[in-house]
């Protein structure tokens, strides 16, 4: 049967001198070429030439980590485009938001994409973390990668929080005022930390400059570095977690027990869970096309969803920031509204102890939970206690966030969403 036109064009191009110099391997036809395609490409070599069938199951990973990565890429691209216009000045920032909306070509849709992708990234990184927990994927040998993942989650929150201030509207100003006030409740260092973040005691030009620098340089660079380590370790730990890892069996074999009539290369000293060790070839398929094409399809899907949201829903932009007219209630960004709800009961316990304890527990989790069973399966019976504790914490956080978002009105009093009055701006 004749190949489709795009394939024929691609085959022709990769056979030309220019095409061969760029791609080295044409459209793979044999198993050797499928391996070469992965190994000889900069972007593809980060992934193995062959991948375990279990890793390809959408029902296992749900693609949540990859979706988070794609959202991060969309944020980098749209963020750089926004940087061409944005000026971190309290005099100009808000006007530039208006200009993006009304006169800059594609300015509105790019800003919308950035905003919605940022919210989605917070959501999907959290969901990815839940997936890793419920499948026990943080257990040995992936303990430290979980810790890096928690760090990436905190960086995601930091990126979103610092970006929240940049439009310099009422929403931005008061959300950051509330958010940094929560940071100020920490004992001993709280006020110093708040002062360090804001460059003063209140949100102003210094805060905008600092948040901008953190948002476009410091936090993205840290996130990229940690992301690189995160992905590297996924590869080095034998890909995604799966049940009954053969690597564990290999680790039990000591080198001195191996036959001595063979000379060993360095690869024999590598850890037992490297992708090459102890894996049944029958369980593996070539990454090209099975993994690469699925990844590309997911990228198209994520792009389509973000574009759809950006075209039909505008990012919020309220009135110009006004330090003497606080809205009532002033609310933090949605992902901190659970914290704000807790703070409304007790500033110290809600703003410091509970979040501090949660982050510490999350970081230490793989070292506290030493049970080796139940890896690579959703809601494994062996992990019922751990799953129950995690679910209770998660549901509590979600309920608190929903209360803070929908059920809190003026003076943080109770309201029902369908009867909620608009936020009152004092002084009007």
């Amino acid at each position: 049967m004749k190949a489709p036109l795009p394939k024929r064009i691609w085959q022709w191009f990769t056979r030309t001198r220019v095409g061969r110099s760029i791609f080295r391997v044409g459209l793979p036809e044999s198993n050797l070429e499928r391996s070469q395609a992965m190994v000889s490409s900069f972007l593809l070599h980060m992934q193995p030439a062959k991948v375990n069938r279990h890793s390809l199951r959408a029902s296992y990973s749900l693609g949540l980590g990859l979706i988070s990565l794609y959202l991060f890429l969309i944020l980098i691209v749209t963020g750089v485009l926004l940087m061409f216009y944005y000026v971190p000045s309290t005099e100009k920032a808000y006007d530039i938001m208006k200009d993006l909306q009304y006169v800059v070509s594609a300015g509105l849709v790019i800003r919308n994409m950035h905003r919605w992708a940022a919210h989605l990234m917070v959501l999907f990184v959290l969901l990815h973390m839940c997936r890793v927990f419920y499948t026990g994927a943080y257990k040995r040998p992936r303990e430290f990668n979980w810790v890096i993942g928690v760090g990436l989650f905190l960086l995601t929150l930091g990126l979103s929080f610092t970006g929240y201030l940049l439009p310099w509207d009422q929403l931005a100003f008061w959300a950051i005022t509330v958010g940094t006030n929560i940071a100020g409740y920490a004992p001993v260092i709280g006020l110093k930390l708040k002062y360090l973040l804001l460059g003063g005691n209140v949100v102003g030009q210094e805060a905008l400059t600092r948040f901008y620098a953190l948002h476009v340089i410091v936090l993205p660079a840290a996130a990229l570095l940690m992301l690189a380590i995160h992905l590297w370790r996924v590869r080095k730990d034998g890909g995604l977690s799966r049940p009954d890892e053969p690597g564990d069996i290999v680790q039990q074999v000591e080198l001195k027990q191996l036959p001595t009539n063979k000379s060993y290369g360095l690869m024999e000293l590598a850890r037992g869970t490297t992708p090459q060790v102890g894996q049944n070839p029958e369980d593996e398929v070539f990454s090209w096309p099975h993994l690469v094409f699925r990844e590309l399809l997911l990228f198209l899907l994520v792009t389509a969803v973000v574009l759809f949201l950006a075209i039909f829903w505008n990012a919020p932009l309220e009135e110009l920031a006004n330090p003497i007219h606080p809205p009532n209630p002033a609310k933090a960004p949605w992902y901190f509204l659970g914290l704000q709800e807790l703070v409304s009961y007790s500033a110290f316990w809600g703003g410091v102890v509970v979040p501090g304890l949660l982050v510490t527990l999350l970081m230490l989790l793989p070292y506290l939970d030493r049970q080796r069973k139940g890896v690579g399966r959703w809601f494994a019976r062996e992990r019922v206690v751990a799953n129950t504790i995690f679910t209770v914490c998660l549901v509590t956080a979600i309920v608190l966030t929903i209360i803070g978002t929908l059920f809190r009105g003026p003076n943080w009093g109770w309201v029902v969403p369908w009867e909620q009055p608009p936020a009152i701006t004092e002084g009007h």
Partner: protein
Amino acid sequence: MNDLSVRKFYGWFTMLGLLVGVLVVIGYYRDEYREWKGYQRKFIQEEIRRASTPQQRALAEQTPVQIRQILLPDLNRVDRCTTCHLAVEDPSYGGYPQPLAYHPLHEQHPFERFGCTVCHRGQGRATTTADAHGNVPHWDQPMASRCSRTAVAAAVTNSAARVASSGRNSTRSAPAVRRNG
């Protein structure tokens, strides 16, 4: 899974590729075909219709479709009202429906010195009717189509004082109206 053909992915790639393509086209359409461009094209058609000489017609045809704005740094304003209200300075458009109506007595408060929103309020940077007229959430100065004389006088006096004290004038990024012959 053992099937190494990429053929099974074609349907998904086609569907998602088309979806992204359609969304890009919709995004481009909404960005490119803005409300104010329609008003400017109507104005240009009207100018062409009214042209009495070939030179006037050629001049009208060459009128660019572009954002027109009055920059008022001393008043900390950018008024883009003339992007749609192109004939505010042309008495021959007296009696035309908005947005092509003439603004009477504008010589007393020249647009290039005072802009529009000083007296009329609304949202000067906006380029859609609803947003520019300020009838939208999060804009607390909806447009006053007919200001009272005292309100105008107070606004103009206040603005004139600021302009006079700074000794600077506004700049116009593009002529609000291209005059015929």
